[in-house]
């Protein structure tokens, strides 16, 4: 029976596969074609996953060898610097492997892993909505300028400070301030003071012009940096608390939520629901992580209504494990234990109703069903996964 940490890890791997497919890796999971994919945080996440899925790591390595010049070494360095020693080590191996097969040199490279590049046709073009970051870099070059512009396009009308953009883009505040000042001198951003802070805004005409150049634009711009930090740390947390006993599980889970409060806020994920003092917070957190990763793996952005619609409340469930999957309501069917069919599973319909079985009322739900079949999440698999939580 898989452990909760293994379930979460597998779901993060599935999400990573779909995101890499969005960047152009040949993959069977493809739910992020219309969602902006942020390449550097995805590289760090993939490195952090280590051997969880060697094929994913190899495909990502292969892509980086071909297109890694479109990625920013300094951004990778900043992202990795904020992670623990284990992630830094794994990234070091990943970067060294890419360096061994290309001219790409990323900071922090250590010892290369065994890897054999496979002959593959190159992508025709970075023409999917998910590849907007790569298209923008093709236009203005790899560096802070491209990511600053992307932040403006992701949230048009928002005026950012240099500090805001440093957090958004994972470049240093100094670097961002220099970029903003040069853009201001060139007339590409408008600067104005708000209290003691200078804020910058991209003029509407330039936003329209850039969108025209960069189309097709993605439907959503999830904030992958905090999302990936939460998910990767969540896997490690679950591994740890599976070894612990008594109140330690609850305490570590609560400490995790406190330590990631800012990441949860900036990722726009609905926060885990509080529990009474002394109560076990770990089961709430496990459910929360699994619901979050399910939604994200399906290509939903926390800022979208469709994400919130699939954020199923726990009330009325017969088991706290019941919301371990975002798309499904799962409950212990009364009187069915003897037959062994312990769990009843239903897909949540558009209206929030539960459509049991495989019949769906709308085209959207039917599409979702097909996606879920691709994920090999059959009834038995889900029941086993949830029973293991």
């Amino acid at each position: 029976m898989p452990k909760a940490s293994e379930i979460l890890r597998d779901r993060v791997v599935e999400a990573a596969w779909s995101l890499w497919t969005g960047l152009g890796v040949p993959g069977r999971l493809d739910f992020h074609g219309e969602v902006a994919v942020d390449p550097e945080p995805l590289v760090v996440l993939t490195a952090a996953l280590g051997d969880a899925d060697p094929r994913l790591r190899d495909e990502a390595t292969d892509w980086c060898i071909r297109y890694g010049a479109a990625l920013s070494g300094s951004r990778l360095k900043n992202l990795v610097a904020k992670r623990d020693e284990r992630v830094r080590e794994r990234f070091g191996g990943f970067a060294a492997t890419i360096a061994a097969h290309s001219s790409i040199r990323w900071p922090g490279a250590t010892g290369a892993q065994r890897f054999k590049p496979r002959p593959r046709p190159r992508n025709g073009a970075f023409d999917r909505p998910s590849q907007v970051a790569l298209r923008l870099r093709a236009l203005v070059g790899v560096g802070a300028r491209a990511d600053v512009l992307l932040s403006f396009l992701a949230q048009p009308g928002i005026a950012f400070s240099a500090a805001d953009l440093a957090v958004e883009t994972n470049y240093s505040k100094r670097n961002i301030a220099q970029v903003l000042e040069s853009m201001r001198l060139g007339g590409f951003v408008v600067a104005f003071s708000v209290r003691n802070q200078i804020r910058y805004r991209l003029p509407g005409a330039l936003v329209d012009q850039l969108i025209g150049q960069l189309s097709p634009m993605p439907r959503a711009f999830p904030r992958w940096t905090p999302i990936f930090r939460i998910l990767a740390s969540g896997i490690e947390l679950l591994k740890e608390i599976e070894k612990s006993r008594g109140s330690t599980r609850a305490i570590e889970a609560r400490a995790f939520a406190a330590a990631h409060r800012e990441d949860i806020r900036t990722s726009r994920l609905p926060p885990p629901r509080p529990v009474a003092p002394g109560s076990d917070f770990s089961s709430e957190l496990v459910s929360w992580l699994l619901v979050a990763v399910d939604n994200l793996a399906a290509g939903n952005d926390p800022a979208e209504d469709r994400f919130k619609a699939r954020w199923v409340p726990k009330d009325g469930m017969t088991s706290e494990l019941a919301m371990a999957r975002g798309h499904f309501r799962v409950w212990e069917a009364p009187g069915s234990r003897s037959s062994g069919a312990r769990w009843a599973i239903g897909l949540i319909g558009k209206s929030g109703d539960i459509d049991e079985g495989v019949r769906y009322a709308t085209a959207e739900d039917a599409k979702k069903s097909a996606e879920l079949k691709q994920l090999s999440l059959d009834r038995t698999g889900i029941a086993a996964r949830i029973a293991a939580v």
Partner: protein
Amino acid sequence: MTAENLDFEQALEALGELLEHRGHAFELVIAGGGALAMLGHIVRSTKDIDIVALSRNGRFESAKTLPPELVRARDDVAAHLGLARDWLNSGPAELLDHGLPAGFEARMITRRFGTLTVHLAGRFDQICFKFYAAVDRGPQSKHVDDLRRLSPTSEELLVAASWARGHDPSPEFLEMSRQALGFFGVEESRAEG
């Protein structure tokens, strides 16, 4: 359990298990109302546990600055149980500066919670600490009640007064300690002796 009514056993068990899980071990010397409650000397609600010293390799060390691993674990337990962050504090750590009562170590009562070892000050040492606190805070303080509950003998109070004067040799403290002894019915002449 609330911040006003701390369940010491639950809180220390949670802390000890957490420290063990995180690979840390600490030995604390504790006194005050929390220690008295754990020993069953008092039943009043107590909101904190006072650390007098840390013990490492059989030696007492200052607890004025607690190790960061202990502070982090303490705060995490506080968040879990809904306690104030200072539920475990080193308020009386300065007691170590001028020395603990002679024979303190031999009277300690040791409890273990995971990798957390707690040495509770013995009854006589609590009399010394409570006498010192009672003189310092005055006859209306909770320390006077705690001291009364410990039912100290005259001899014990005299030794406690002598020890307390070692911590504060000022004439004012001497006078107040004489008054405190009088409050507990110990003869002035004996106090001077």
